[in-house]
């Protein structure tokens, strides 16, 4: 198949893989990357339940505005799009 836009996936070099925890499961991530990206690559999109109707929600604006990707990290409620992955990070769904 003809590709005018090349696939660069193999040419991206990332930092060594570390693990972090999301609601008890251990997930891989790269140290220094944004938490929402690590969760997305691990297939975790459901980050919280809306407080009023309990419906599943996940990251939406990915730039710190919409507050949809709020998770609990080490006891603090933060945006997953504004937190970086560190080894052993404890993340919980809200």
């Amino acid at each position: 198949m003809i590709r005018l836009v090349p696939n660069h996936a193999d040419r991206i070099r990332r930092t060594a893989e570390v693990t972090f925890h999301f609601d008890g499961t251990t997930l891989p991530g790269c140290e220094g990357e944004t938490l929402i990206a690590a969760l997305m690559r691990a297939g975790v999109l459901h980050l919280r339940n809306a407080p009023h109707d309990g419906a599943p929600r996940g990251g939406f604006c990915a730039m710190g505005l919409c507050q949809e990707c709020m998770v609990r990290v080490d006891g603090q409620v933060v945006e997953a799009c504004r937190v970086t992955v560190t080894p052993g990070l404890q993340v919980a769904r809200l």
Partner: protein
Amino acid sequence: MTAADVDIAVLGAGPAGSTAALAAAQAGLRVALLDEQDAPGGQVWRAKSAAILSAPHTPESKAGAALRQAVADSSIMLHPATRVWQIARTGDGWQIDTLRDGATDSLTATRLIIASGAREVVQPLPGWTTPGVIGLAGATALFKQNLTVPGARTVVAGTGPLVFYVASEIRRLGGTVAAVVTPNTRRDWAGSLPAMLGKPALVARGALWVADLMLSGVPVLWGHQVTAVEGDTRVSRITAQSVTGASTHNFAADSLCLGNGLMPQVEAAQMLGVPLHHDAALGGWVPACSDDGVTPVAGLYLCGDGTGIRGADAAVHHGRLCGLRAAADAGCTSGHAMDIARRNWRRAARFGLAMTALSRPTPALAQLASDDTIICRCESLTRRDILAEIGSGATSTNAVKSGLRAGMGPCGGKYCQTSVARLIAAETGVTEGAVPPPTPRPPLRPVPVAAAAGQFDYDDLPIPKPAPL
């Protein structure tokens, strides 16, 4: 003379703000540049995360790297990872309250340039709150910062050029595009060609994205819109229909990138007293300012997409123009540089405004939400809730907010107020510009109460005398 920390504070280190800061610093002024991201670049030239050791360059990554180098080589005092949550007048200058690493601080400046940029407009449709649906602009943030795609199989939908950029980046980063769905027709694009010819390199790049999709067999549905998203904890199926309703297509997909153009972020300027007017060609409500970014509020300047959506190229020239103007007002004149910047800005704006016109939400998109579709994501308020409030007499976004809390959730109304205003306009038979803009309230960004309160001793709190019985 004031004893301000700096001569000029610039809020927002995107193309406009960074270039304004560079122009003012080169004119010899003490300049502080504040941004909530870790590095300058804004959304369009967002820097890669520390986890990316190396990756192929793109036009955006190169432009961002050059900008970051220029800022680093300058005398600019950069305040990265700093959220501005409050701005106040102090004497004849400004006090800017910030939050960084959970700690508050403040900075004073004689003059203030706000380059707040844009945010995305997303027209609500059934299922748009399902995890896996992200904004087109949000997708670009993921690509640029983390070189990560939103899922294994993605539908890309919306207005304007961004759909093709996002689809192309998904393919470049190893993802699969299930389909591109855009309400724009090929005729809409052809109509924009005259305005686009001033930027042939950008036209060629866009043509390559579309050609790549077509050669690769990715369905590109012109004149179509996504009408429904299915999935519980994650997107599973996307339905698209032609704008006329004549044909329906279903796609299995685990993610959807969705967006309908950008709107200026005007809250900070609005809070400081700059009047707004509605101009759909500029993306909605825009603040009053001259071409040079001078506002009716003394010592306050605005530049870039926050004054109207004209795109990154125009933002660079507008930032330079505004930075030179603020420097000139501070006594540092710069000869013909302002005239050159103004001319370049007008030329670049022509292309940018044509893209803004293509990106505007089409009237049909406003019909997609059903009664059960959530309009206010924070408070889970549906179209039915909002319509009932309008029916009981709420004819402004502020009235809907008072009655229902639409706009009082954590996002501060950033993602619902445009939709609420459109519903009010449709229900009451007026134009969107006739529905007053929402009144912004501090803080500009969420701030923990403990950080906002700062350090204090309970014994120092004044206790009022009890009222006589």
